């Protein structure tokens, strides 16, 4: 894509991404929050595509749809106010967290603007590219696999712990009670 076309996609999509991300914290409905987060992350995938990072963009679009839909599913299942109709506040310790978010955001923006990013494009068969590939698929793969397994066990364990009491903290109905 030409620079103009990239800019025409980048800035509106980036602005829309920030707006949807902000609304995640404004709404109190679990379904809306999850879907807005999905919108924000899908728009980020589009940003990657606009910046000619095709594989990352496509992967982002694929993974985020599945992950955010899972999040909607579990949030609606386990949160006490899934529809946002009882005025539950999702945000805690507002002032300090907002302050921390602004400070960290500004710091990251300064780093992003002031860093001297490399401008040259490497061909796909450059030695650096090969080295990164071997690093990611070799030694580091072992820890990635264990991290993935740990996350899976956490999800399953979390559901098993949460399910026993049910959403409202009452015991399971008589028919569902299990011998433990």
């Amino acid at each position, binding site marked *: 894509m030409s620079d103009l076309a990239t800019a025409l996609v980048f800035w509106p999509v980036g602005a829309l991404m920030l707006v949807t991300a902000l609304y995640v914290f404004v709404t109190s409905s679990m*379904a809306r929050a999850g*879907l807005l987060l999905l919108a924000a992350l899908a728009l980020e995938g589009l940003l990657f595509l606009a910046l000619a990072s*095709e594989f990352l963009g496509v992967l982002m679009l694929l993974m985020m749809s*599945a992950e*955010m839909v899972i999040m909607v599913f579990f949030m*609606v299942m386990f949160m006490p106010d899934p529809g*946002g109709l009882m005025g539950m506040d999702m945000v805690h310790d507002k002032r300090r967290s907002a302050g921390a978010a602004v400070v960290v955001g500004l710091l990251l923006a300064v780093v992003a603007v002031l860093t001297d990013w490399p401008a040259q494009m490497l061909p796909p068969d450059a030695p650096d590219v090969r080295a990164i590939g071997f690093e990611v698929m070799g030694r580091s793969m072992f820890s990635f696999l264990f991290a993935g397994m740990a996350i899976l066990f956490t999800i399953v364990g979390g559901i098993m712990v949460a399910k026993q009491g049910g959403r409202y903290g009452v015991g399971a109905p008589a028919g569902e009670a299990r011998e433990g």
Partner: protein
Amino acid sequence: MSDLTPFAILALAAVGAVAVASLETLVAGFRPAPLGATRQALAGLRQPISHPTTYDGWLFHLAPGLLLLAALAALAMVPWAPGFRGIDLETGAILFPAALAYVTPAVFMAGWGGGSPLPVIGGFRFIALMLGYAMPIAMVATAVAAPAGSLRPSDIVDIQATVPMALAQPFSLALWLPAVMAVALLAPFDVATAPHELGGGAFERYTGLEAALVALARRVLLLAVAGMTAAFFLSGWHGPLLPDWLWMAVKTAAVAALMLYAGRRLPRLETDRLLTLAWKVAVPGAIAAIVLAGAETLLFYS
């Protein structure tokens, strides 16, 4: 890809949807009347669209558009002929499941925004179903891409010039077909939109233009998954005598007819049985399919 490719894909979606609707009528055992059916569908547009009285009504109105967008994006990845390869991306085989992954939020939004019990149940059923069936689609896509050494769909078609992938990896095909039928909301996997059980489920409350959009998107979705099945497993445009695009059309129609026929012959299972199949058979099976594909690639293709 030329500048006209996007328009060609839109035209294909419009014509293909009518063809798929005719095929549905034919498989159901009636004589298809595409002109009459189209006229009837256009007459339905005069009906006003319905507005659910819930706070999340905007999700309800966004859903048909998102569904159609996901279906069109999936259709755009299908390579139809050497001269018309769709949006021919290096990552097409991953973008195809990525596009299909947006069917899930669309169906959930339709159900949740509809705001009455049956649509909401339909939306949640579809999320549960797709958590299981989305993975085999992406994993099988990597399995068929392994011999080609490329995620470009047209490369995957070209590697099948001698042996179609259906013969080289029949196990992958067996995992792929139910998974794409589930994502295309086809019977017997249509627990989210079950006409007899949930009275239309997630799409129950749509009328007028929005109902037409949903109907169109479902046909485009079937066309996309049937086309991609033909490209990934039935060697796409390769074949003797007939012109290449005609081979692709015949194979796509055959796959679509098979899916529709299976939906008419097989009973709809309960959601939890479908999930058992997905998690205990399809997902471990897909891992095995990737290992098998890797072994085959090392032995025969390199």
